[in-house]
């Protein structure tokens, strides 16, 4: 029996990538969704590149064009969700690259979003859901900013249904920060229908001012293939998450031209 690969088998692709774009997927101890994220990258037509949290090599980012920090429970959520992962050697490189002139696109999903707030790439923080329960459901969101690296293939105001699954999903920030986020159009996603965790102003995801760093609690990487995503309002299984990965590819291809 062959050894189970750390991240989805990258050699098993039946279709050749549409572009030569390489998207890094970071694995920490306790990361759960790295395989799904790598699979989503491949289904979108790019090449996923596994990145290791403890890699101290100067080229640890392996020349990737974008980075996904997937969900899970890095370091068991010890101390605070994302608090220890934030200090991993690879994170310093990601923070520098995201803030550099090249503005490396970075997407944080769930625990990845928590890590991005702990790393101060995005403002605010996540605390326990107001009802204190772990929640796992199909959740509809509204895309409120379709000008970011990760949302440009959605229509403005488009409603998408993807999976939400977390315990510490209540987005909080002080009123001044929330007002700034709203005024600058940096609320990228808002929950539709109800507020599943008590997040301030129904915020499901935000972007930095440059639009290259986006974080959200729900999971686009679980809604990328017909027949396997959440059941959408139209009665079809949702592939609504694919747009995140198509968006970053669109941006990368556009930049290459």
């Amino acid at each position: 029996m062959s050894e189970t690969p750390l991240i989805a088998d990258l050699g098993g692709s039946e279709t050749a990538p549409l572009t030569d774009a390489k998207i890094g997927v970071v694995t920490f101890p306790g990361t759960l969704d790295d395989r799904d994220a790598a699979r989503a990258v491949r289904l979108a037509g790019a090449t996923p590149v596994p990145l290791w949290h403890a890699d101290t090599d100067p080229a640890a980012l392996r020349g990737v064009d974008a980075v996904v920090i997937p969900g899970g429970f890095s370091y068991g959520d010890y101390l605070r969700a994302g608090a220890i992962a934030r200090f991993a050697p690879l994170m310093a490189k990601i923070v520098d690259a995201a803030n550099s002139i090249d503005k490396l696109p970075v997407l944080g999903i769930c625990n990845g979003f928590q890590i991005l707030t702990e790393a101060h790439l995005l403002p605010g923080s996540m605390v326990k859901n107001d009802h204190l329960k772990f929640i796992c459901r199909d959740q509809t969101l509204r895309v409120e900013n379709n000008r970011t690296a990760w949302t440009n293939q959605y229509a403005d105001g488009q409603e998408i249904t993807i999976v939400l699954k977390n315990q510490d999903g209540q987005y909080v920030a002080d009123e001044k920060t929330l007002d700034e986020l709203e005024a600058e159009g940096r609320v990228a996603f808002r929950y539709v229908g109800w507020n599943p965790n008590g997040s301030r102003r129904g915020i499901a995801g935000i972007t930095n001012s440059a639009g290259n760093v986006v974080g959200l609690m729900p999971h686009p990487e679980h809604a990328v293939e017909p027949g396997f995503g959440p059941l959408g309002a139209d009665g079809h299984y949702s592939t609504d998450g694919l747009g995140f990965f198509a968006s970053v590819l669109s941006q990368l291809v556009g930049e290459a031209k």
Partner: protein
Amino acid sequence: MPRIVVDVMPKPEILDPQGKAIVGALPRLGFTAFSGVRQGKRFELTVDGEVTEEILEQARNAAATMLSNPVIEDVVNVEVLDETASEDVAGAPEAV
């Protein structure tokens, strides 16, 4: 060995869901005197040797940068644990 205690509490303006759940459960056990509960964290940092002012400063920096998240939490206390006091407590459980 000496220990430095760091106490971290959720900010007053942040709803503390855990504290809220606890205050809801207390009356069910007959503890009716408490109208609010906030749950924080206590860290004990062990030091090999004497706690110098420099080491205490390190503890304050660690408390501010890693042990707490200033967006949601306040560091409310950083102090050297009084070893004699803790030994008294440990050595005299019958006094409780």
